[in-house]
């Protein structure tokens, strides 16, 4: 029967299918965006650097993080999650990755920022390998879209070194 209900049902089904298609197209349009974010991090000072009673090294530092993530935003971007990790190698772990700071960037307007902060999360080593250790500061980001595929990438900044002695 070609009734009111039949037509309403057919229309809603078809409309939902097409909605899925345009959302998929919106997600695909994100791949046409080639972002070029920039970031710079300065270690302004080492606040303290000590060996905990349990034998692990811990360091507290003041950072100056400036980044321009505006090119990550497209019309299909909900928000960007960004975190700064200290990365270094020790004899037991080929990669130590310690998150020092993170943040959520909800819009393009504030995606160019500069933050002066001490490390938000504790920088503790598994062991006492931090004296004189060379480390990278890596800015990781996850782009969360309104629909479709999530993107993640990072920017590695190298050439940082911890002091030789506890203080």
């Amino acid at each position, binding site marked *: 029967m070609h009734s009111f209900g039949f037509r309403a049902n*057919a229309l809603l089904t078809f409309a939902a299918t097409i909605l899925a298609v345009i959302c998929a197209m919106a997600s695909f349009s994100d791949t046409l965006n080639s972002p070029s974010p920039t970031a710079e991090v300065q270690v302004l000072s080492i606040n303290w650097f000590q060996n905990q009673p349990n034998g692990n090294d811990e360091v507290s530092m003041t950072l100056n993080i400036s980044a321009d993530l505006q090119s990550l935003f497209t019309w299909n971007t909900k928000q960007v999650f960004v975190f700064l990790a200290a990365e270094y190698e020790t004899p037991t772990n080929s990669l130590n990755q310690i998150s020092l700071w993170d943040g959520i960037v909800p819009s393009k307007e504030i995606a160019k920022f500069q933050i002066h902060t001490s490390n938000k999360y504790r920088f503790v080593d598994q062991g006492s390998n931090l004296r004189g250790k060379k480390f990278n500061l890596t800015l990781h980001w996850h782009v969360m879209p309104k629909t479709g595929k999530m993107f993640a990438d990072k920017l590695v900044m190298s050439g940082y070194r911890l002091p030789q002695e506890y203080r």
Partner: protein
Amino acid sequence: MMDWQGQKLAEQLMQIMLVAFAVVAFLTGYVMGSFRLMILVYAGGVFLTTLITVPNWPFFNRHPLKWLDPSVAEKYPKPQPQEPPVVLKKKPAKK
């Protein structure tokens, strides 16, 4: 219930309108850089399409079915159910 031509028209109109609104919505959203605008344009399109193709409007009924008048139909004998064909049993051939 719509007539046959009306059903075909309603269905084609529904599909064409939805696809057209989807294209317009996507292009508007992409050019204006607003996902929200895309959804709003498409929602408006779905609403308009519902309004046009779901109710049984008079213009879907411009080709009414013409049934025979009962008085004409009665002049002709109704088709009788056919007798089942008689299956002749083959008598075993005498040799």
